[in-house]
């Protein structure tokens, strides 16, 4: 792994740690995945193709130990079920090993260790790190501190690019393309990091976006202005249901109680959207409903059995998308003929 670092002397004053005088800026850094800006459209499409070929491996039908001997460090400073488990499954399906930070409450973090120090340690133990952290910017910070690639598994209300990759995979699987689709993102668009990363990616592929949310949970203005500056076709509304008729994708999100400091504010918007089969009578036949999960009551269980529901496949797709990303960031080529390269389990 390339590990050259250019050290530059900077001006600093007393209240910054002395280390700040000697930092890595402008040097050659390792490529991780912090935001979707780290991937070009061509790279995204290539990763999605790799993911598609890896499906039989993800299902456990084929053994293909492309990452044998490699170790993934799972650093989840915040609760996670799907992201952490799918990273672990992805690594193990490809023959790699995983080490976990474990419960933050019993790790050195609770003793006051800085993220910088934690990364210095884990970076020595592993070949690649998947990380989730409650603070925004933590993934970029970790990447600047590390010699191994960082996969951002969510940083506060910031970004969640590996979720975006599995979302794009699910959309492409259903519609055969990513460009020119009409996509509704609904629910908590303010704190929902999955929709932040996804809206950037969909804009780059020329999708029309509808943002449906209660007023206090609108998409942050800086994201809307960035999307518009990149040619985004954006409509903001509070009315989800009237927009569904000609949509290709309805992406529901949970109103996240844990992001509200005021319970009353949460109570005002909780349950703002509840999708029921009754709401699906006039939608396009091929329209798909997605959700990053966990859901509370945004999607009624009766929707699960309709042809529109894709959220459980979407959760499974987290494994293939992350398999392809692990290969990409570790510089391992996914064989063109996976069946030929792989063996029986």
């Amino acid at each position, binding site marked *: 792994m390339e590990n050259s670092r250019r050290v530059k002397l900077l001006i600093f004053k007393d209240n910054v740690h002395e280390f700040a005088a000697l930092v890595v800026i402008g040097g050659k850094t390792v490529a991780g995945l912090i935001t979707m800006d780290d991937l070009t459209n061509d790279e995204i499409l290539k990763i999605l193709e790799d993911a598609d070929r890896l499906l039989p491996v993800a299902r456990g039908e084929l053994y293909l130990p492309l990452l044998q001997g490699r170790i993934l460090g799972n650093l989840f400073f915040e609760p996670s079920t799907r992201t952490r488990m799918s990273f672990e499954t992805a690594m193990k399906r490809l023959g790699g090993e995983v080490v976990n930070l474990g419960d933050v409450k019993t790790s050195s973090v609770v003793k006051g260790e800085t993220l910088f120090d934690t990364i210095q340690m884990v970076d020595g133990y592993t070949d690649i790190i998947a990380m989730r952290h409650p603070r925004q*910017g933590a993934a970029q910070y970790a990447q600047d501190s590390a010699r191994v690639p960082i996969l951002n598994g969510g940083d506060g209300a910031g970004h969640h690019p590996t979720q975006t990759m599995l979302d794009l995979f699910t959309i492409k699987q259903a519609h055969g393309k990513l460009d020119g689709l009409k996509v509704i993102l609904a629910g908590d668009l303010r704190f929902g990091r999955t929709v932040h990363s996804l809206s950037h990616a969909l804009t780059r592929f020329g999708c029309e976006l509808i943002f449906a949310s209660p007023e206090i949970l609108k998409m942050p203005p800086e994201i809307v202005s960035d999307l518009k500056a990149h040619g985004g076709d954006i409509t903001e509304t509070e009315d989800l249901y009237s927009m569904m008729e000609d949509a290709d994708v309805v992406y529901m999100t949970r109103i996240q109680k844990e992001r509200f400091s005021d319970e009353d504010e949460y109570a005002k918007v909780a349950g703002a959207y509840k999708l029921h089969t009754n709401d699906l009578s006039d939608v396009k036949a091929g329209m798909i409903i997605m959700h990053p999960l966990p859901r509370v009551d945004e999607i009624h269980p009766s929707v699960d059995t309709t042809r529109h529901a894709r959220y459980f496949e979407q959760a499974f797709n987290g494994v293939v998308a992350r398999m392809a990303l692990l290969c990409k960031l570790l510089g391992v080529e996914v064989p063109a003929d996976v069946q030929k390269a792989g063996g029986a389990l």
Partner: protein
Amino acid sequence: MSNEHSMRRVTAIRNGTVIDHIPQGQALAVLDMLGISDATSVPVSLVMNVPSKKMGNKDIIKVEDRELTQGELDRLALVAPDANVAIIRAYTVAEKMIINLGDEMVNVVRCTMSNCITANLREPLPHRMKVVSRDPLELRCHYCGRPQDLDKLVKNVI
């Protein structure tokens, strides 16, 4: 009142740095950003609210026996991007310097977002602000990407 006349409100300095054309009312912020406080031993002259042909009213600072470096001056881009800076040696202007807002400000200000990773002051990596636009000035935190409110940002000077 001419610019020349206004400059005579304080005596000429023998050696040091003169920062002219500071926006009205920003001189104290400039001193703060340069780390010039009551603990500073060199003489400092501060002129505020003097008429200027170029900018209506302006502030001026003269720091004796200290030549500010380009790196120190670049910190001023946030509050006084168009200030003129002269290094004085033996009562004459030895060097004219321009405040240069680069692509990034490093360890000048802290991100204003309370949930940014850099809000933990024990984290050792430098505070970095990317310059997204010069006019109007728009800065974003290198780590969390949050666009910065400049009025709040000047209170976060390191």
